[in-house]
């Protein structure tokens, strides 16, 4: 594998792993605080899956010469993370967390489904396992999104407001990479544009069913920047909290 291809794969792995680590972290913040016990448990399950998936991708990075997964996850600063800004936003109320989960997991499921056929076999192998887990995340997201979008006036209004708030950030998940052509050309990944098209097609029926309106397309302003290390003010405190104990004594085994 030549250096350009390796670099392109690393970039792809970093953004995916960082997305998963950060949204997993956010999901885990619901532990003990969910609207019903069953949701507490669901968000915790998803958090565990996502953080486990992030770890699997950091292991692939490690095999490509990057540092150990723990070092990569717990010793970087916020501006070294490549997650989309969508996942770093605070949980807010359950409406926002749920809308984000719905929008993110549809995209991630499609991403891993595409990668299950990647020409980069180590990633394809991980993707085949992960897409099986994501099926349940998407199912959970769909069920709640449709129910709360259409249950009563308050829940509808809340869900619509959260949807409007999340929308441009969600479009930011598909921030094009400088390596798109190479990844597509070598059959490693189908590219962000294709992914976004499939995503829109997949989420639309559920959005209609929930009675939620998608903001009109001329108002769309995808929030880019996350993939190149530009983040909101929310990421830095998250990273500091996440690494607080690990950095307390970096020489230690924990």
């Amino acid at each position, binding site marked *: 594998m030549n250096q350009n291809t390796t670099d392109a794969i690393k970039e792809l792995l970093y953004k995916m792993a960082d997305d998963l680590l950060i949204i997993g*972290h956010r999901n885990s913040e619901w532990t*003990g605080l969910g609207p*019903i*016990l069953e949701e507490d448990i669901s968000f*915790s399950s998803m958090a565990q899956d996502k953080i486990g998936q992030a770890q699997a991708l950091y292991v692939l990075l490690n095999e490509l010469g990057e540092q150990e997964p*723990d070092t990569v996850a*717990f010793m970087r600063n916020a501006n070294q993370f490549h997650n989309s800004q969508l996942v770093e936003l605070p949980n807010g109320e*359950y409406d926002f967390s749920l809308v984000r989960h719905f929008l993110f997991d549809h995209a991630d499921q499609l991403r891993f489904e595409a990668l299950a056929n990647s020409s980069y076999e180590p990633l394809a192998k991980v993707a085949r396992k992960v897409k099986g887990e994501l099926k349940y995340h998407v199912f959970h997201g769909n069920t709640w999104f449709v129910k709360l979008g259409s249950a009563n006036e308050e829940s*509808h209004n809340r869900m619509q407001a959260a949807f409007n708030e999340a929308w441009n950030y969600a479009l930011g998940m598909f921030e094009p990479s400088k390596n798109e052509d190479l990844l597509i050309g070598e059959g490693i990944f189908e590219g962000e544009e294709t992914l976004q098209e499939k995503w829109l097609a997949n989420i639309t029926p559920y959005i209609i069913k929930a009675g939620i309106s998608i903001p009109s397309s001329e108002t769309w302003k995808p929030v880019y920047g996350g993939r190149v290390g530009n983040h909101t003010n929310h990421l830095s405190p998250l990273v500091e909290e996440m690494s607080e104990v690990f950095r307390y*004594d970096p020489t230690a085994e924990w």
Partner: protein
Amino acid sequence: MYGNAYIDPNDKATAMTAGEDPKKLEEFEARIARGEKIEPMDWMPKEYRKQLVRMIEQHGHSEIIGALPEGTWITRAPGFRRKLALMAKVQDEVGHAQLLYSAAETLGKSREAMINDLITGKSKYSNVFNYPAFTWADACIIAWLIDAGAIINQVANAKGSYGPYCRALDRICTEESFHLKYGHDNVVTLATGTPKQREMVQAALTRWWPPIMHFFGPSDKISNHTEILMRWKVKMATNDDMRQQFLNMYVPKIWDLGLTLPDENLKKNAEGKWEYTEPDWEEFKRVINGGGPCNAERLAVRRNAEERGRWVREALNTTESKYIVPLA
């Protein structure tokens, strides 16, 4: 995890069977004596039902309140391995609350009513969770020693007489045994780690020792009350017996790690019984009645979570008919 149910010592023992049909009571007690389980639709004395609801409910509350001090460390857990394990552990605890509330519901009190009694301060939960987990090491000590205490209590209660509670406890005990291993592994790692780690685990142990000694509750007064509850297999072991069992199992393990306990009088005597400085029971009473360092905060967090989630629960209660956005 769980603390021993707090039974009000002022309950009048004579009132416990007042007004019950003597024949039914006799049959009921004979069933229990034969080792049969009582099931939800079976006849039972009012007081049996009341004590069980109180006990199972307190246990359920302890699980969800217990998720708070440990839960705050999920987002700080050092490294993937610890983070994943702690998430799974705390998730288990919330799952235990779900199981326990379901068991208590079979006795006629709804989950909503139980949670309401928790957040209004009407019903209790284990006293230990009114203390803060200052550092990562505190979360490790909780996972090891509080869960160890809980297992002793729950293994005893799993042999009790009420079927749904026993079945819930069997499953809970299996999961708790993993928590215990997780906690032990963490404490061993810290105790055999760098000077900073050893210092933090010793400080946490010293902080948690008094609440741990309080964990099983004050010495039982041998009263008719206790006697009936033991005969009905609601209460399965005395507080002192459980405390002895705990000390016997865990003090040697703690000492083996080179950690010290803040009680100069702690030793096993010639008869094999542990001697210790009597814990401060005034402090215990003060904390259980709301005066501990975290009582207000724990309930405020829980109340806030209930309040923030209310719209979700209301939305779930709507029928299948859908809300349609008005056209104008």
